[in-house]
C-alpha cells in the first residue's frame, strides 16, 4: 500500500511539474514582450512575420515618426487645454471658443493624417497579405 501511495505521489508531482513547465514555456515569449520596453515592436515582428530586413526598415520608420507623433501629441494637448480654459471661462460660444474648437479639430486632423501616412508606409514594407491584415488591424 505504501509503495502505491509513493507512486501516486510521484505521478502527482510529475503532473504538477509538467503543467508548470509547459505553461511557462508556452507563455514565455509573450510574457517577455509584455515586460520588455518596446515589446510591442517585437510583437509586430512576430504577428506580421517580418524578416530582419523588413523589421529594420519598419523600426527606422517608427523612429522617424516618433518625433512627429510627440509633436502632434503636444499640439493636441495644448489645443485641448486652451479649449478647456475657454469653455470654463465663457458662458456662450464666443469667436475665441469657436476658433479654439477649430484649432482642436485641425490638430486632430493633422494627427490622423500623419498617423495614416505612417500606417501606409509600414504596411508597404510588409508582404501584401500581412500588409492588408495590418491595415485592417489599425
Amino acid at each position, binding site marked *: *500500500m505504501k*509503495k*502505491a501511495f509513493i*507512486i*501516486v505521489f*510521484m*505521478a*502527482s508531482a*510529475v*503532473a*504538477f*511539474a*509538467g*503543467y*508548470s*513547465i*509547459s*505553461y511557462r514555456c*508556452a*507563455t514565455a515569449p*509573450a*510574457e517577455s*514582450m*509584455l515586460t520588455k520596453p518596446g*515589446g*510591442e*515592436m517585437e*510583437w*509586430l515582428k512576430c*504577428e506580421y512575420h517580418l524578416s530582419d530586413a523588413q523589421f529594420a526598415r519598419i523600426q527606422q520608420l*517608427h523612429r522617424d*515618426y516618433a518625433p512627429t*507623433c*510627440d509633436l*502632434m*501629441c503636444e499640439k*493636441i*494637448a495644448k489645443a*485641448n487645454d486652451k479649449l478647456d480654459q475657454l469653455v470654463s471661462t465663457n458662458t456662450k460660444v464666443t469667436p475665441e471658443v469657436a476658433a479654439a474648437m477649430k484649432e482642436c479639430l485641425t490638430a*486632430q486632423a493633422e*494627427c*490622423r493624417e*500623419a*498617423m495614416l501616412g*505612417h*500606417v501606409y508606409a509600414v504596411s508597404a514594407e510588409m508582404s501584401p497579405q500581412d500588409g492588408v491584415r495590418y491595415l485592417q*488591424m*489599425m
Partner: protein
Amino acid sequence: MNDSDSNDLSTKLRAWTVDPRVPTSFQREVWQRIAQRQAVRDEAFWPRVMEWFSTQLIRPRYAVALVALSLSISVGAGLLHAQDANARHWKELETRYASSIDPLEMGR
C-alpha cells in the same frame, strides 16, 4: 412388487397432499437477508478497490502508465491554459502598439 402393493402405493399417492406452510415473516426475512448481504458487499467494495489498486499499481508497467498519463494530461492542460494567456497578452501588445503610434491616444 405384486398387485396389492401397487394398489396401496397408488392409493397413498392419491391421498398425499402437499400443504407448504410459509412463515408469515418469510418475505420480510428474505428482504432483510438481501439487505444485509448488500451492506456487507458495499462495505467490502472500497477496501477491495484499494487492495486491487495497491497490488496492481506497484507493477512497473502500471506505475509507468500512470505517470505517463498524468504527465500527458498535465502538459495538455498547461498548453491549453497557456493559449488563453497568450491570446490576452497578444491583445494587450496589439493595443500597446496601436497606442504607440497614435498621438490622440498618447495625449489622453
